[in-house]
């Protein structure tokens, strides 16, 4: 222990954790600012948070093509971490843009909200750059604890409380599995470093048959699978997504999920590379299960937030297809998909934020009847996002899925790709049904309460540009994603 501490102190490299450090510092300062702000006056905090995120984005760029390892190899700021950090930052910025007016409408404009988002993002970046199971765990907890609070943020609303509580209990439960798995792995290998575990497997080819090792690895993966909402560990998602404040739902579905995938990928592809052939068959089943469960249950949803929650489960399933492929194309496809998903899903949620009434009881299929005629621009925007979620060209959803399935086919998993595409076909039904409501039903409401505020409009515009840019010119970012892979 003494040695470890010594070693760690000698290898401190603040560069490696600079992004999270900067963001946490900003978060604390902003927390102080909110203390001295009047209740209800939170707009400046929102803009300051965005500024903080932008600065952090530039800080994390320092690690691009210039990997910075630190703390005795327990964190690294490399291309991979930078790529995912930037996704989380983008998600956080979009969230904050759509939050300010939302909080005012829901009459809960309390300032801690924004610093909490910053802490979540810091945790997410920490996860993406962790190369030691303990640092990853730390990041995961920072992220989760902030999210528990955010999910239950409307403390006078039962649904929000329910969301926070359920997320907390089940999250704690899954963390138990994760930690237990880490402990077992440590017991077998004597290390918590991802690379160390990989070295151990290399030196002990029989570890595949080592019960303790396998159980440890699987239990740890369960923790990650919970965070990315893969079946059968997805059940918290609909309830939490539906109950949480809508911008937070949007954020959860993009930023933290991307971070969880980042850690999941790093630990699996590097640490558990030795048992790849065992894991791919597991991922194969989980991918199909996740896609199918998400899409099929989404078919019978009437509540839009809940429908998008199931849709997000199915999209995690598509991303898992990339894990099965376990090759360069599949890996960069997941990274690309996370980016694509951030824009299209957050865009869809931003439209929902705008058309909701206080309490959001109107965010149902019937509630959007005739929206396309009453609010044509919002209607078109939502259509773009839904087309992208379906995976139709020329939107980003198409290119994202294309790369995912191309990766699977390249590794020979043709049937998996076929099942994935069939799932996409099923998903057409519930996405299209929203459009049918918007354009083929007579409006029951005049949507007079919808006022398009500038920040939310900006977030929608950014998302549309992102969706179309990534759909039409996917090459540039795909190449970056390839550079960010291992």
């Amino acid at each position: 222990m003494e040695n470890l501490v010594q070693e760690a102190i000698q290898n401190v490299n603040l560069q490696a954790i600079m992004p999270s450090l900067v963001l946490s510092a900003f978060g604390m300062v902003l927390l102080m600012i909110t203390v001295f702000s009047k209740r209800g006056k939170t707009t400046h905090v929102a803009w300051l948070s965005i500024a903080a995120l932008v600065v952090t984005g530039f800080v994390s760029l320092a690690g691009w093509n210039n990997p910075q390892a630190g703390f005795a190899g327990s964190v690294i700021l490399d291309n991979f971490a930078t790529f995912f950090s930037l996704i989380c930052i983008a998600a956080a910025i979009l969230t904050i843009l759509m939050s300010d007016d939302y909080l005012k409408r829901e009459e809960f404009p309390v300032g801690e909200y924004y610093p909490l988002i910053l802490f979540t993002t810091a945790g997410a970046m920490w996860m993406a750059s962790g190369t030691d199971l303990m640092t990853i765990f730390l990041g995961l907890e920072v992220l989760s604890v902030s999210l528990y609070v955010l999910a239950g943020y409307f403390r006078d609303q039962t649904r929000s409380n329910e969301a926070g509580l359920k997320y907390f209990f089940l999250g704690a439960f899954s963390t138990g599995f994760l930690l237990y798995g880490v402990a077992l792995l440590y017991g077998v290998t004597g290390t918590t470093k991802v690379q160390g575990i990989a070295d151990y497997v290399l030196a002990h080819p029989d570890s595949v048959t080592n019960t303790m090792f396998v159980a440890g690895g699987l239990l740890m993966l369960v923790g990650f699978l919970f965070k990315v909402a893969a079946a059968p560990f997805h059940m918290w998602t609909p309830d939490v997504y539906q109950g949480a404040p809508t911008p937070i739902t949007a954020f959860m579905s993009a930023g933290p999920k991307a971070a969880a995938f980042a850690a999941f990928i790093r630990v699996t592809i590097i640490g558990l590379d030795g048992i790849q052939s065992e894991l791919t068959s597991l991922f194969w089943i989980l991918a199909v299960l996740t896609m199918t469960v998400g899409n099929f249950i989404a078919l019978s949803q009437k509540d839009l937030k809940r429908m998008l929650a199931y849709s997000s489960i199915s999209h995690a399933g598509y991303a898992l297809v990339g894990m099965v492929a376990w090759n360069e194309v599949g890996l960069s496809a997941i990274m690309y998909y996370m980016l694509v998903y951030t824009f299209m899903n957050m865009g869809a949620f931003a439209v929902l934020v705008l058309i909701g009434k206080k309490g959001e009881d109107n965010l149902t299929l019937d509630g959007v009847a005739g929206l396309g005629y009453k609010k044509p621009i919002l209607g078109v925007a939502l259509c773009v996002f839904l087309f992208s979620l379906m995976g139709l060209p020329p939107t980003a959803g198409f290119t994202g899925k294309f790369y995912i399935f191309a990766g699977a086919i390249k590794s020979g998993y043709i049937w998996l790709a076929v099942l994935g595409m069939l799932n996409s076909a099923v998903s057409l039904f519930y996405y299209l049904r929203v459009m049918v409501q918007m354009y083929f039903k007579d409006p029951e409401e005049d949507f007079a309460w919808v006022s398009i505020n500038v920040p939310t409009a900006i977030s929608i515009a950014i998302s549309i540009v992102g969706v179309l840019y990534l759909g039409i010119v996917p090459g540039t970012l795909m190449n970056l994603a390839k550079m960010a892979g291992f």
Partner: protein
Amino acid sequence: MYSNLWLIPFFPLVGSIFNGLFGKKIKNEAVIGAIATGLMFCSFLVAAQNFFRLLGDTEKIHEVVIASWMSIGQLQVNWEFLLDPLSAVMIMVVTGVGTLIHLYSIGYMHGEEGYYRFFCYMNLFAFSMLMLVLGGNALVMFIGWEGVGLCSYLLIGYYYEKKSASDAAKKAFVVNRIGDFGFLCGLLTLFWTLGSKGVWTLNFVQIAEHGHVLEAGGLVVTVVTLCFFLGATGKSAQIPLYTWLPDAMEGPTPVSALIHAATMVTAGVYMIGRMNGLFAMAPATMMTIAIIGACTAFFAATIGFAQNDIKRVLAYSTVSQLGYMFLAMGVGAFSAGIFHLMTHAFFKACLFLGSGSVIHGLHHAYHHAHLHDDPQDMRNMGGIRKKQPITFITFFVSTLAICGVPLFSGFFSKDEILWWSFGSTRGHWVLWLMGAVAAGMTAFYMFRLVFMTFFGEQKTDPRAKDHIPESPLTITIPLMVLGFLAVVGGYVGVPKILGGINRFEHFLAPVFEHNQHHYEIHAHGAASTEYLMMAISVGIATFGIFMAWTMYVKNPELPAKFTARFAGLYKAVFNKWYIDELYDFVFVNPCKKIGTFLWRGIDVRIVDGVVNGLAWVVKGLGAGLRYTQSGYLYNYAMAMVVGVVVIVGFYIFN
């Protein structure tokens, strides 16, 4: 250096999006028209800048990569443009003629419902067409190829409440699908065969560079080029897929001028020019193209004899002139084909716009007199030259150009094609003869049109005949510019034997010359033969004009006598040789019957049954799975535990 190429298609795209989104709200016709036309003009300026830069450049082939589109394995596809003499000529034609026709439309479409929709589609068309000709690889070209098809469909069906218009639009779309199918087959076959030899590419320059890995004259290259040619027959209205073009005249006249005369229908010719290396390798395909081209030129001209709708005559004339271009491509006279494409764009656009001006005037007169006569029927015209002098003069010089009267643009381009079809190593005197006779027929039906429309007594209803105005400036200015180009446009390609140096051919040489040398395609023969051929074709054309004059000016009772004497023949020609009926009988009706059977028998009973059954199962499953979502925390935790136990247990006990 050519990095601003992307602006050329970008401007019309912006115009299309702008008018599409906001046109309905703007309502002000002047603003909508000015935006669309102004952006086209900007596009023209950029095109001209690049064109002249290329003229002065020693390096003639430039690829400009805008962004990476996709890279999978060894295949790298970019958003890229290719500027070489061929595409430079095309962008000048498309943006130049396009701008004029946009300007024309401002006046012509005045007061039409959906004015913004018209300009939105027109700009979108220009964008697609420019993507088609500038695309540096087959995928970008394909986007343009499909885009122009879509816009053509939308614009033919512009008056969608009119059944004949929406039917014509559908026909155009379906017939073009057949061609597109061929195009895609060719593309995929080429892609895979090149790939199997280690060349994974869709880029035109690379295809040209590595095309020789295929066996010259071999089966693969013949099939590939034949498939491409099938695509070209669809888009460019050649036998057997020409039937949609005459019906396409249901669209507004500027549409006919821009899409169905000057630009889109020449896409097939351009495509063959773009892939001339592959075509040169397939003599069998070249021969097919030449024969089809000559037959189309001849056959469509015969139908032109007996049509009374002014736009339909021009439509068949377009089909016939496109036949000349294909004849040129087929005998290896690539640059002559492109040359004719350009001069044809000038004079045919002018002719269509002129006919539009006449229709516009008559429409106005009938409207004034509260009549509902057909303003497109030439039997109601006559003597209009006095009412619309500018229209008449421009129309007349364009007619001289299309007839191949010496000193006018069509003379140079058509004569070069005829000479090549006779003297080329891939030519034949029969091809020449068909072309020359078709030229005579062209002269006949075109002058028939001119005499019936502009000369003689005014046969318009007396209540309306004094109210035919000359068209406004937005209409006459494009007519004058195009008329001027129809006269002088040919002087860039004066052949050697007439003392010229054929600048046009020299300019295009970097694209075609190598392949022509390599596959020994050239025209040969004594200068005296060339003079003789020229004299004969001019003689035939003069004879055609003379015949038209005899029948429609000197002895106006003659046509009636002829039709009475050859009633059967006349009826056949009048009914366009019953080709539409034949297609209906052979293809359309059986297809409909099969379709009805598939619909009632297979689709409703079996497919729908399966689909509905599946949907029922899926929905049932979804509803069932929904009950797993009880909302109780302990159920969720239980599910997780079960999941963990199954997963871990599976691995440990396996």
